[in-house]
């Protein structure tokens, strides 16, 4: 028995060495994402726990329409490796970089420091590239740490809490925010934020998942209703499920016309599909090869009729291949965003936004993912 036990151990060790490490690296993408779902960076490094989040039209009637997301974090104390050990982070996200470069005023009131008129206690003025905090009398208090991120669509600013007047934020239970482009008027209602950390909203997450699958289903229904993938034997087009036949069909078409970008794109897509049904080694080689055709097709189809279909093929492949192996999520998201620009079809646009959301999520770019999802929701509720 002991001998058998020892042999079993040796064989397990041999398997781990010969195949275990290789398999780990091949499937590390899945494992990394799984482990990553349990981990999080200490909030003092990322700006504090989120305690208030406002989306789109809910932000303020007087704010710029391009402002799509406003996040209020809990104030951070004793932060390491940051410019200020005590700070309060607020984040504004815009649809486009131009809007982010225009002036914005945020009037902030604290529940523990209310003035008689009950409006606001200090003002943050954000101009291009910098931000300043003033008190009610217009006296300068401090400059904020200003970060322009995500290709200029996100303004993250941190108010240093070194000044006594600002330190009251640390004790505030509620804060009130007015985001405006001009002077503050009495008609605007503030955004009320309870300064406690929000718990992970499992219900919202489930709703998002349901929304994403709903949009995808809607797209598939409309697409296949309009263009049923049936064998088009009249044109010699083979059954779409017969990958090898499709490959030889499109391969022949490419031979006849090497500039035929639709055939190039289809050929690349079928190669990737074939990869999905092959062994790991072959799959990687096939997917890599498929990009030669997909990239060439996109290049040839640029600003021509049929560009959307060609882009859609490449983007779909990019969205479905393992990120850790191929690293295509970012380019997939870019392709989907270009489809949004080119297409007039509302459902296709929503589908592209949803797919871009998934690609950005894969890349760990939460901010862009959020924006893409919001845009999709604007298309289809």
């Amino acid at each position: 028995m002991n001998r058998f036990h020892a042999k079993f151990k040796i064989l397990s060790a041999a398997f781990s060495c010969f195949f275990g490490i290789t398999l780990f690296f091949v499937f590390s993408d899945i494992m990394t994402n799984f482990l990553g779902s349990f981990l999080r960076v200490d909030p003092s490094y990322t700006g504090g726990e989120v305690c208030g989040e406002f989306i789109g039209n809910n932000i303020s009637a007087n704010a710029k329409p391009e402002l799509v997301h406003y996040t209020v974090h809990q104030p951070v104390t004793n932060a390491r490796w940051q410019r200020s050990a005590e700070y309060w982070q607020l984040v504004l996200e815009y649809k486009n970089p131009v809007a982010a470069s225009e002036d914005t005023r945020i009037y902030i009131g604290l529940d523990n420091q209310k003035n008689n008129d009950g409006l606001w206690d200090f003002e943050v003025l954000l101009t291009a590239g910098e931000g300043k905090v003033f008190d009610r009398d217009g006296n300068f208090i401090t400059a904020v740490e200003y970060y322009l991120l995500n290709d200029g669509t996100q303004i993250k600013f941190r108010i240093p809490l070194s000044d006594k007047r600002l330190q009251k934020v640390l004790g505030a239970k509620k804060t009130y925010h007015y985001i405006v482009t001009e002077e503050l008027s009495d008609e605007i209602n503030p955004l009320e934020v309870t300064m406690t950390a929000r718990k992970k909203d499992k219900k919202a997450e489930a709703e998002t998942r349901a929304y994403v699958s709903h949009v995808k289903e809607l797209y598939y229904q409309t697409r296949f209703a309009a263009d049923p993938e049936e064998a088009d034997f009249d044109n010699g087009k083979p059954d779409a499920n017969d990958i090898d036949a499709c490959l030889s069909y499109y391969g022949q078409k490419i031979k006849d016309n090497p500039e035929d970008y639709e055939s190039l794109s289809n050929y690349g897509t079928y190669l990737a599909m074939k990869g999905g049904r092959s062994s790991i080694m072959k799959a990687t080689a096939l997917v890599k090869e498929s990009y030669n055709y997909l990239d060439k097709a996109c290049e040839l189809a640029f600003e021509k009729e049929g560009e959307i279909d060609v882009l859609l093929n490449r983007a779909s492949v990019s969205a479905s291949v393992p990120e850790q192996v191929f690293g295509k999520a970012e380019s997939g998201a870019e392709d989907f965003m270009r489809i949004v620009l080119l297409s007039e079809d509302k459902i296709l646009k929503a589908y592209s936004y949803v797919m871009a959301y998934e690609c950005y999520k894969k890349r760990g770019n939460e901010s862009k993912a959020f924006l893409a999802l919001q845009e999709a929701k604007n298309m289809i509720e």
Partner: protein
Amino acid sequence: MISCLILSALMFLIVTFFVVIMNDCSVISVIYAAFLMFLYIRMTFAEHKKSGSGVIYRRIFQTVFAVGFCMAFISDLYAERGSMAITENALSSAELPFCHIAIPQVLVPLLVTKNIIFPARITGHYAAVASMLLIWFICTITVGRGWCSWICFYGGWEEGFSHVAKKRRIKLLPKNKELREFHFGFFFFIILASLCELACVYCDWFCPFKLVTEFAPATSIPTLIAMILFIGLFVGLVVVLPILTKKRTQCSSLCPFGAFASLTDRFSLFGMKIDTQKCSGCMKCATTCPFSAIDIKTIQEKKGHPEITCAKCGECVGVCPQKAISYEFRFRLNKGGCACGSSGSGKKSALQELLHPAHLFRFAAFTFSAIMSSGFMIKALNLVCNFVTSIGGAK
């Protein structure tokens, strides 16, 4: 011989997949794959002929990888930020690259605070927290501290410098025990300090490899002190002392990951065995060991295995005139003694040879090395090629 061929064929498949196919079958990737295969085949056949004679290929690989890694990493930093200095944008967005040295510093605070105390991405990047933690875990249960001598992309600097001089100028052998004690003492200090500060204290103040990767710009007195410290530590522990002592002084006295890997090495599949019946007590192994893992007492007390800090580099195997040191499965190593004579002598079948712990360990370590290095090395080789081409063009 057959086992060497089988191992080489298996390694060929791995290298072809991870180095050539994953890098679009580019010319550079083929060149690097050929280089890796050359090293592995030479190492395997040399070891087959004479145990311990293949260590030179490990040294070459690790040194080349360390230089290539830093080149690729620095070029990435310049592309992203325009300098090696850490920017406030990167810090505030928690976008710093996370490396294995930070792992022991974040683990204890993770248990206490349930947060990672390092401003890095959790996923979505090659140097993200989750991917590095997984690599560490897989490494721990396979090669253990073998990471330091085979895979670590910083260790190659010391590996290279420790083989620059022909003669040992400073003999550290009598101080091996003190060195190990200092290493673990410093490790526990770093863990405690990281827990108290809720920040990676070693990365902040001591890491010498900031000089060849990224560093905080000297904008205040503390950052200036940190800069002086890391430059001094790099010059002292990574360059000068390895040249004088022919040992990896930073790895065996300062690196918290080294100490941590030593402590967790008991979970790995492999260990080193000293056959006390064969050992003549010449102390050549102790003098050679770059990690100060064998000292006079190890031999005198007939422990049957090196000390806890052994990184399984295999240097001692080659220098032992009695062939008393070898790789062994950890589950076969007897507690407090050795499995002396258990491997037996005489002719072995190909399967027995294939399943020999030394072969398996080297295969596992080299697989790790090849996969981990492929992306960086190809980037570095591309940089070198572009540089050479631009010089050629200018001429």
